[in-house]
């Protein structure tokens, strides 16, 4: 009954046609999009591979803890460079897919898009570290900080080498440069830990004494390279 009256009223008193609607809509400012919303929006465009790899590292760490495998430490340390490589590849995806020019002309600058992606992937790496390091250290009975430093140094080393390579002409032409860097770093870890003998012992001693300082230095270097990448992203588009 009520809906009948509503229909009758609508028929008798129809709204007038809009006047100046288009002009009015054009004057409305676009809604504010917060920084967090923009970053979160970018998360949907980061490929599943990146998240899967991060999950794999955590999975290997947990599996190692459950099965009490000391080799899990080496496996996780060897996987970290690939996590870094995938992060670099994802950060440069716009350029690789030829989307840079289009993205430069959109509301959010290409720089902010690249920064958003790097922030997300960096946060993912940090979460991986915060979960995997204590879990692994429970198996190896080494300190969590020591374990974390052992994991983070290959990650930062790979990133600080891959970022300038990706900006170079070699990186622009070849898909697999970052993976190549990650593979070499992983190989070095494999070789030194299996055959290094005294070199490996020496490396662990250095990590024990200076590991945090080395990690912080690499972090600064990586941050500098990321800053350059972000700044040059529109130049290279």
């Amino acid at each position: 009954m009520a809906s009948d009256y509503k229909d009758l009223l609508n028929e008798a008193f129809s709204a007038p046609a809009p006047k100046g609607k288009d002009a009015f809509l054009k004057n409305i400012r676009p809604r504010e999009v917060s920084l967090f919303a923009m970053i979160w929006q970018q998360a949907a465009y980061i490929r599943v591979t990146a998240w899967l790899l991060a999950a794999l590292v955590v999975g290997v760490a947990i599996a190692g803890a459950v099965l009490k495998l000391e080799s899990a430490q080496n496996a996780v340390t060897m996987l970290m460079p690939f996590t870094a490589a995938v992060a670099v590849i994802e950060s440069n995806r716009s350029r690789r897919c030829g989307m840079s020019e289009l993205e430069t002309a959109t509301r959010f600058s290409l720089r902010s898009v690249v920064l958003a992606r790097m922030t997300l992937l960096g946060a993912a790496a940090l979460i991986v570290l915060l979960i995997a390091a204590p879990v692994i250290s429970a198996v190896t009975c080494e300190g969590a900080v020591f374990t974390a430093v052992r994991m983070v140094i290959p990650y930062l080393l790979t990133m600080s080498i891959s970022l300038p390579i990706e900006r170079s002409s070699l990186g622009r032409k070849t898909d697999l440069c970052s993976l190549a860097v990650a593979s070499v770093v992983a190989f070095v870890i494999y070789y030194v830990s299996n055959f290094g003998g005294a070199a490996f012992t020496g490396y662990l001693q250095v990590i024990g004494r200076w590991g945090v300082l080395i990690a912080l230095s690499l972090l600064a270097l990586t941050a500098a390279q990321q800053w350059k990448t972000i700044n040059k992203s529109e130049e290279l588009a």
Partner: protein
Amino acid sequence: MNNIGTLYKFELKKILKNRLTIAMLIITLAVIIIEGLLPGLTTSREAGVAQKTLDGRVIDDELLNEMYPQLLGNGSEWNADNIKYMGVAGVEAGILSDDDAVLSDYGAAELYEIRDEAIVDLMHRDGLTEDEISWWQEQMAEQAPFTYVYNGGALTLAQGLAGVLMCIMLISALCLSTVFTLEHRQRTDQLILSNVNGRKETYLVKMLAGLTIVIGCSVATAVLLSAMVTGLYGMDGLNSAVQIEIPMSSYSLTMGQFIVRQMIVMITSSILFAAFSMAVSEILKNSLAVTGIMVGLFIFGQLEVIPPQYRLLSHLNTMLPSNQISIWSLSEYRLFNIGGHFFTGYVMSPVIYLAISVVLVIAGAVSYNRFQVTGR
């Protein structure tokens, strides 16, 4: 034939002109140099010279009784006077699985007996049948007593070959996985496929070019590493029994014979890596996935995550090229039983790798010949 030769040269050129290939070859060279130099930096030359003075001595009561008074810290502390016994102490410590065992409590006969029993226990742990154990016991019958020979040079080469294989794997994964996918990505596949020699012949020359690169790299790196090690340290210990390095090994091999087996494994593994990389990248049309699979398998092989009671899976894990080439493969007891005859992993692995390579090449050929240019 004329065209095959021309096409082959062009395919080689395409691979070698790729800057990533050049970078990986340079890295491989650097790895060989580091592998050659590293032992010299981490171990002292004097230790090697001292240990060589015991070359040819049988590890018997006479040698052990000579060594025991010289040991410090139960064989964990070494100085200029006792360093010559480091290798012999290492053999004894390797036999005694108990870290708290006092080396000087054991005579030679007791040591070898403990070794034999421990090996049989390990074989039972690994699920070997009584027939397999008997087979091994026949092999081991003439092994003891061991003759000590300093094996620094041979050991450096053996360990170095394992590192080289990883470089070959990386070259295959990073450089050869784009041999086919690059044509699709660069959109040159249309031009190639529309020509007389664009299907079977092109597939054949691409495979040949890839295999040439990896086999060439394997041989060149093996030769280079051997030359470096010989030049820097001498090729000591080729005739030393593998038990001097891996006391619990049941193989009746010298280090030289082991290195020959490693080289066969390396070349056949290289063929497998190349075939896998090229064929699977063509089937999946994705070079990144192939790189991920190959590197992932390598890392997985290091994990030792499969307990020995799952014999088949565990055995398959040890048959991965990265494990098969490692010096630790000398501790593998499991055998292949074919028609009542037993074969070790060193005999079977090249056969298996080549067989899988053939299957992959055929599968890749089917995929390539069926490929249709659609979309775009």
